[in-house]
């Protein structure tokens, strides 16, 4: 007995700590690898090679880039609000990584098995907005400010539909717990009864992590780099990895909520999970290669005039069916 903990407790704490570390490192590693995957896939679709020189298949390009970015001058513009400028990129990393805590990769591999898992996720993604707004505000740069302004509007709006689209899934599973939601899909994946919700969630997720075509906050052609225009070195690196963490996160969520998570025949659960999530990660990249960016006001109009009614109708119908069945 140490500090009132039994041997069993210590082992379980140790195991949780290891699991946490593995998931944390794993997700960051996958996010970093995504950079390579994205560049190679875009290259493939755009009739060019992409990075293919460093290491086998250019795999070590990411490592080289990371080393470069670590050794870059850590520069803060003299006109920036220093404290906020430094905190901003940390927030996006923190919230994205925290969100991974509730994702059930397999029945046993979850950091915390929260009863309000979905709410926790939504909370984390809401907090992520601060990162972008802080960055845009603290940079004291007009492009950054415009980017931040767009982000605030975009993320707050799309959060509404994201939350609403998940309600259907919650109603079907009868729980906010992600593990329970996966188990509830044994008979049929949620994507079938909840197809509109899936589409809305995917689009809203895209908007949340501001990936193309919803990359208005950092629209290169308009705002150079938007909210992170003034960032360089590792602080920029954190935004960059944060974006890819976002892709991984949303792909994991889509897998968990709509595609039965680890469920699948023959192969081990984790492989199924990885395959499904990997598919969506690639889909994000394809989306970037193949879509046009809507204008800011068009994006908002689409959200409020199209997605919102569909989401509400979906919740209403799902609710009615659930009530009728019980």
């Amino acid at each position: 007995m140490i500090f009132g903990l039994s041997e069993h407790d210590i082992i379980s704490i140790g195991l949780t700590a290891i699991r946490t570390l593995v998931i944390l490192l794993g997700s960051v590693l996958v996010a970093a690898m995504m950079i390579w995957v994205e560049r190679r896939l875009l290259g493939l679709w755009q009739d060019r090679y992409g990075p293919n020189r460093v290491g086998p298949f250019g795999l070590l390009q990411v490592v080289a880039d990371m080393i470069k970015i670590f050794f870059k001058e850590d520069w803060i513009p003299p006109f920036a609000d220093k404290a906020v400028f430094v905190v901003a990129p940390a927030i996006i990393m923190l919230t994205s990584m925290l969100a991974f805590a509730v994702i059930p990769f397999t029945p046993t591999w979850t950091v915390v098995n929260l009863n309000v898992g979905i709410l926790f996720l939504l909370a984390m993604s809401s907090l992520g907005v601060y990162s972008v707004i802080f960055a845009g505000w603290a940079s004291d740069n007009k492009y950054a400010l415009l980017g931040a302004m767009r982000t605030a509007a975009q993320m707050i709006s799309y959060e509404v539909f994201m939350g609403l689209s998940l309600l259907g899934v919650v109603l079907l599973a009868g729980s906010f717990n992600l593990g329970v939601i996966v188990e509830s899909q044994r008979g049929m994946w949620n994507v079938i009864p909840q197809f509109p919700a899936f589409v809305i969630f995917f689009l809203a997720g895209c908007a949340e992590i501001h990936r193309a075509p919803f990359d208005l906050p950092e629209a290169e052609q308009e705002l150079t780099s938007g909210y992170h225009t003034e960032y360089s070195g590792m602080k920029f690196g954190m935004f960059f990895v944060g974006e890819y963490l976002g892709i991984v996160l949303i792909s994991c969520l889509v897998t968990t909520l709509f595609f039965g998570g680890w469920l699948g025949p023959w192969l081990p659960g984790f492989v199924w999970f990885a395959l499904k999530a990997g598919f969506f990660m690639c889909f994000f990249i394809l989306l970037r290669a193949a879509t046009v960016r809507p204008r800011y006001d068009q994006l908002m109009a689409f959200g409020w005039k199209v997605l919102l009614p569909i989401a509400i109708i979906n919740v209403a119908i799902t609710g009615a069916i659930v009530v009728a069945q019980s």
Partner: protein
Amino acid sequence: MLDTVDIQRQLSERFGQDTLHPQITADGLPTFWVPRDRILEVLGFLRQNSAPAYRMLYDLTAIDERAREHRPNQPISDFTVVYHLLSLFPVAEIRLKVALLEDDLSAPTATGIWPNANWYEREVWDMFGVTFNGHPNLRRILMPPTWKGHPLRKDHSARATEFEPLHLDPKRQDIEEDALQFKPEDWGMERESGDTEFMFLNMGPNHPSVHGVFRIVLQLDGEEIRGAVPDIGYHHRGAEKMAERQSWHTYIPYTDRVDYLGGVMNELPYVMNLEKVLGIEVPERVKVARVMLCEFFRITSHLMFLGTYVQDIGFMSPIFWMFSDRQKAYDVIEAITGFRMHPAFFRIGGLSLDLPNGWDRKVKEFIDWFRPRLNEYERMIVPNGLVIERSRHIGAYSQDEAIDWGITGAGLRATGVNFDLRKARPYSGYENFEFDVPLGHNGDCMDRLTVRIEEMRQSTNIIEQCMQNMPEGPYKSDHPLTTPPVKERTMHDIETLIAHFLTVSWGPVIPAMESSTMIEGTKGLNSYYSISDKHTMSYRTRIRTPSFAHLQQIPLISQGGLVADLVAIIGSIDFVMADVDR
């Protein structure tokens, strides 16, 4: 010429016999000297009431006449302001000149008659120091605000070595930077209105979507554009000044780089202009080969437009596909000319080389490759809902606005004006080709996009016709001033040897003349106005480029849009900064 007589009659009936002083020019264009105090009346009359009405201010420039020796039958003038007007239906041009003396270098502004006189007059002030009375904002346009002197004056040095060495020390850097600081008051802009405080956003000269070094300052209310001030001159290389110290022949490579996506298309008006003056009739083979190469460059330039335009609205992939198509086109161009983007292939009186063996196979390969690709792009881009959302009714202007602002090329045809110089007044044998002139009707970004896509298809058809009907024959005309001269007989008689030696070492001497030639370039109407003082070098070369006029219109058509719309508009105009600044 009949139309000269006719317009002269109209003008003298209206303004009296002695107001006008006609001048005979080598290009046969009606050219009249008008006293300074009558010029606005004459311009106004020509725009509205004459037949034909010259609706477009095509060009406005000046000549420093102080060092010119051969000016037969021309009024005394130190500086001459030249107005070049254009009527589209029927195609007719007219040139008006105003003589100014050195102690009183001022003319009335034409901005009240044509809005696009604004930039042209600023340019003349910048380059020659001619003041335009009543101009709303007469300040430097191409040169830096801190520049001393007026570069196109004959007493201004042309070479960097004639200046003191430039040292960009921190002090000077600060001075230059301060000079570029944007002050809304200078442009008559409010900093706030009611309870709105405007944001002034500086875009460029280094910005991903300004296509080169173009700067535009936006007056924003939120993201809505209330006003815009374009600032050009960052790509100014003094192409017109350089013409005054290059031989007629060695200037050809410089023309390639004016519209740097246009390649040989830029050489065409320059060499055709000189051929017209010298009376050189180029062989049929030359004409067809020139047309073919020009159309290749129209395709590469339009592909660049298409790729960058859709990239500007957020579609990142097509530009890469179009770059591979452009490479295929450049492969053909390289096989024929020996160079890719700036071949300097046309010569006064012909081509630099004959077409190589098997050129037609390469051309056919390109056509076979490109046609399906173009169809695929069209299917992918034109019906795309988001492309339509971002382009339809964005940056629209009417036919009248287009003509008032000197818009030509695809930008003009997108409004539905059926004017393509290749059809309206064919040159270099365009009358022998079958092709359509695609038109739009809204004059918005979408129409500019679809018109250019169809133009590429038509260009492919023209190239195919060139390939099938390439005449046999020499690639250079047999004329003493063909450059470089034909060498066959040089070793046989001494006269030809001397002539050959002189034309190669000094370059040809062009007789004293004035002439301009217009073509339908990749971006719009492009023309060269050359003045020779019977020297081996040009006395004055004026390059009228379409992009200059197109850029001037941006503030008007971006008003009320969002920043994202401006990016689409800039992309849809399809300009090249080198073409704007020269």
